[in-house]
């Protein structure tokens, strides 16, 4: 298991900590084999398009802690992600019946003279102002390329501020240039929470941590009858709630790419067991996940009854969907573990997955347990995926592939991707809520969404006939991975 070290201000990025990669094309079986043999090598692209950076991933997790404030220590452009998470926060409040709260987000406006003289003193001032203005219970300071390269002493500044103000003031080291895998920013956010907020348990409770984004609240229905209380983190939690995540009975991941580090840290430091089975997507995947949950919580018998009941409930409709989707093809592009979940769902529903472009690949998660590998489980249950690519939102590759494959449906998990399906007249949809496809009901939810999407084609056909593409004819005739490589092929195992 990779060792969680809360004594350093920063957690090593995924490239270093997990040997994660952003470039690969081949079969999924080959990738998993290499990964488990620790032989996977990064391949780089000579031509690349913009992606996303760690600071956005960190902010995504920190920005919805109800009584905390976030200071983005950066030039003003780095605050460009404030509005998108603020609206997510506000709509999430509506869904949860919370009052209309405002996010406490601030930027320290690093300017040219700061890059010469340093901006640490300015940051100290900003922290004081934010403390007075927002009266937060904790302040997180996220770093930027600019603050990182000029070498501001963020750690010293936040320590002094914490002593002065008497609330946790915590650095979250998440400079964009440090990692090509933006999920490193999730690790940064969790590292700052574990280092700066979480306290040793007073006693164990019947709470279960659910590391998630801002998905729907589906876990109450499952866990409350078993005598447990759900604790959704980090979005919509409070500082006090986060201080005691160490007391929980277990940690559930909605997506191990998201919570890999947090889950492992809580288990290593505070002995909170992490459910290691890949999250419950697809029939067999859900069976497996539930059984592990039953074992950890000591409620295996109840779980077995639930499995029987739920199979009986969903199978008739599932059979209808399978018949309907038989022979249809799908392509998807998504983040790692959730992408694997979508592959399972599509195959469960009878689609042939022609290919997948997954944003990065973690050979193994922080728990270093091969049983957590959702892609490996996918191959065991449903067979190999021959056109599996690891591709960090490189739209040009995806457009090339979609033009070639012409799937019946495109499923995307991030912005800027589904649009390309529409331009080609391919029915497409974007998944926002991970919980939407979770568990047995999730399979049916997907079936319904796909049925609706496939059924709604007039506007797409109309648009596709008129839309323009910025890609050259030359490019669309090339092999999709001709800019990938250069350094090394994946070693055969």
């Amino acid at each position, binding site marked *: 298991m990779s060792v969680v070290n809360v004594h350093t201000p920063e957690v090593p990025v995924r490239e270093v900590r997990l040997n994660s990669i952003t470039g690969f094309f081949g079969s999924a079986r080959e990738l998993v084999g290499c990964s488990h043999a620790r032989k996977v090598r990064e391949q780089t692209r000579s031509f690349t398009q913009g992606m996303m950076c760690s600071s956005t991933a960190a902010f995504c997790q920190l920005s919805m802690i109800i009584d905390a404030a976030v200071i983005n220590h950066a030039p003003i*452009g780095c605050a460009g992600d404030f509005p998108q998470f603020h609206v997510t926060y506000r709509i999430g409040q509506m869904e949860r019946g919370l009052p209309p709260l405002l996010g406490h987000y601030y930027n320290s406006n690093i300017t040219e003279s700061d890059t010469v003289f340093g901006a640490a003193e300015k940051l100290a001032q900003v922290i004081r102002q934010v403390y007075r203005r927002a009266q937060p219970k904790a302040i997180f300071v996220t770093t930027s390329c600019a603050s990182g*390269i000029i070498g501001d002493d963020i750690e010293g500044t936040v320590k002094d501020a914490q002593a002065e103000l008497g609330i946790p003031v915590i650095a979250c080291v998440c400079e964009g240039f440090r990692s*090509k895998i933006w999920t490193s920013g999730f690790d940064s956010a969790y590292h700052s929470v574990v280092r700066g907020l979480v306290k040793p348990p007073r006693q164990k409770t019947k709470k279960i941590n659910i590391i998630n984004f801002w998905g729907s609240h589906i876990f109450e229905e499952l866990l409350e009858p078993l005598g447990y209380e759900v604790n959704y983190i980090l979005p919509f939690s409070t500082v006090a709630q986060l201080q005691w995540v160490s007391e929980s009975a277990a940690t559930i991941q909605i997506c191990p790419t998201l919570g890999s580090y947090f889950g492992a840290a809580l288990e290593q430091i505070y002995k909170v067991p992490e459910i290691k089975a890949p999250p419950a997507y697809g029939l067999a995947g859900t069976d497996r996940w539930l059984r592990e949950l039953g074992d950890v919580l000591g409620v295996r018998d109840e779980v077995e009854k639930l499995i029987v009941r739920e199979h009986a409930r969903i199978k008739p409709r599932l059979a209808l969907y399978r018949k309907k989707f038989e022979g249809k093809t799908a392509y998807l592009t998504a983040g790692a573990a959730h992408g694997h979940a979508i592959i399972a769902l599509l195959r469960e529903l009878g689609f042939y997955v022609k290919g997948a472009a997954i944003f990065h690949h973690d050979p193994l998660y922080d728990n270093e347990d091969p049983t957590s590998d959702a892609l490996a489980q996918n191959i065991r249950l449903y067979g190999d995926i021959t056109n599996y690519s690891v591709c960090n939102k490189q739209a040009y590759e995806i457009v090339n592939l979609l033009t070639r494959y012409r799937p019946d449906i495109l499923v995307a998990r991030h912005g800027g991707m589904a649009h390309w399906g529409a331009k080609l007249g391919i029915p497409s949809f974007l998944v926002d809520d991970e919980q939407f496809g979770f568990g047995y009901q999730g399979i049916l939810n997907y079936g319904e969404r796909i049925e609706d999407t496939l059924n709604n084609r007039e506007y797409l056909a109309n648009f596709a006939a008129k839309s323009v593409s910025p890609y050259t004819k030359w490019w669309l005739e090339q092999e999709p991975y001709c*800019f990938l490589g250069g350094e090394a092929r994946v070693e055969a195992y």
Partner: protein
Amino acid sequence: MSRRTEARQGIEVAGALSASSEIGNKTNSLPAGMDAAPNALPQPLSSLPKPPHSALIEWPRYSCALGAQQTVVAIRRAVPILHSGPGCSTKVQALIGQGEGYAGGSTIPCTNAGEAEVIYGGEERLREVIDGSLQVIDADLYVVLTGCTTDIVGDDTASVVGNYQFEGRPIVFAETGGFKSNNYVSHELVVNNIINQYVDPKRDDGKIRAGLVNVFASVPYQDPFWNGNLEEYKRILEGVGFEVNILFGEDSDGIAEWLTIPEAQANIVIGAWTGLDIARHLKECYGTPFVHFPYFPIGARDTTTFLRQVLDAVNPNERGRARAEAFIRREERKFYAHIDTLMDFLLEFRYALPRRLYTLLDASYALGFTRFLLNEVGIIPARQFVCDNTPEQYRDEIQERFLEVSHLGLHTAEVTFLTDAGLAHDLIRLDAGIDPAAHNAALERGINVGGSGSGSDGSRSLIVGSSWERQLAADIGADLFIASVPLVYKLVLGATIVGYRGGIRIVEDLYTKVLDTFR
């Protein structure tokens, strides 16, 4: 009021001021229309000395220098190539870009500079990405923009791009490291660099085309209505007899149009300050004179003033002028036919309509909205906040113009320059009798708080600002018209809110929203 609250009012506002340079220090007069304020609270901004240094920004509404990627995206068939960190492009678009355009958003090539490029330099990576862009992206112009990483490390972008220019490739570059400025300023830099590096070398002779004008108005995407606004400027300037290089958006001919920039008889700058450096630059290069109209003209009054100022300066012949005046008469006739309907509504509607105006906008829009809503619609200015980090040298002049907003000389508008809109929110809440700190504390305890600014006491306010003002508007019972980024709660496709048509559009959208608040 709790002790904590008092401390916050005293210290917080003063503390924030001491670290911000954006606050105007000349606005001592009580703002017009403020007598209706339900609670006479101190005017902390006016009495404090000018602070030396700017820091904290809450509710940001412009981007960094790299935000000029959207300037490039707005040129038809042009593509930015970013030599920057991996997240910059997405963050710029998240704040100011609605839609990907032709080659923006997920299409934008980027070196995604990492540790290696920061330590060893990124010039080789830049060459790789330029090579790929030329092969993969079908564009007429490629514009290399640098980010913080590149500009701090000091890559020689000029020489990398210079080699491609030498080979005759349509490519230019600009140093837009985020910390260097903001996207209002870098917009001018990028336009000037395109002129210097691409347009000028292709200029064959010094000929001038009579009647051809270049228009420099909205900063694309920073003005969310840029596309429709530029269409309206082109329409009305063509209407009075000019041939128009509008340069950005769907009504432009793209690069072909840019190549004729040096042939223009005159340049027209519309706006408080952005664009002036482009016009000065063109005057220096080609001797082209320029006309400066210092705010966005909204509605017939200001649009006609604008057109006449241009016509007087650019001096068309008698017959041309007569045709131009005929166009203006026709536009005014149509406009006031609609305003006639508005009068009917305003004067006969029996329930509260917004009567006091707050703006949180850039200088060009703040002046334009204040003038239009006062002189044509009857909404009196309360406080105006100019949030575009206006350069110091333009502030006095802008302030003067706020004193002259009324065509009868009856009202003036108090203006405050600030970039930290959090302060503006606090002041507007204070005006409505809400203590901002108590308000936040109540929200945190789950208590909904409303102000006294709403409804039947006749003081219903209008805020023209961004989506950041949504909760503020709800709290004080004000109506919100979104005319600034971020746009979260508004979808803008091709609408115009300037010129003759824009005035009508604003009135329709505004009162449709107002009417929608009644049961």
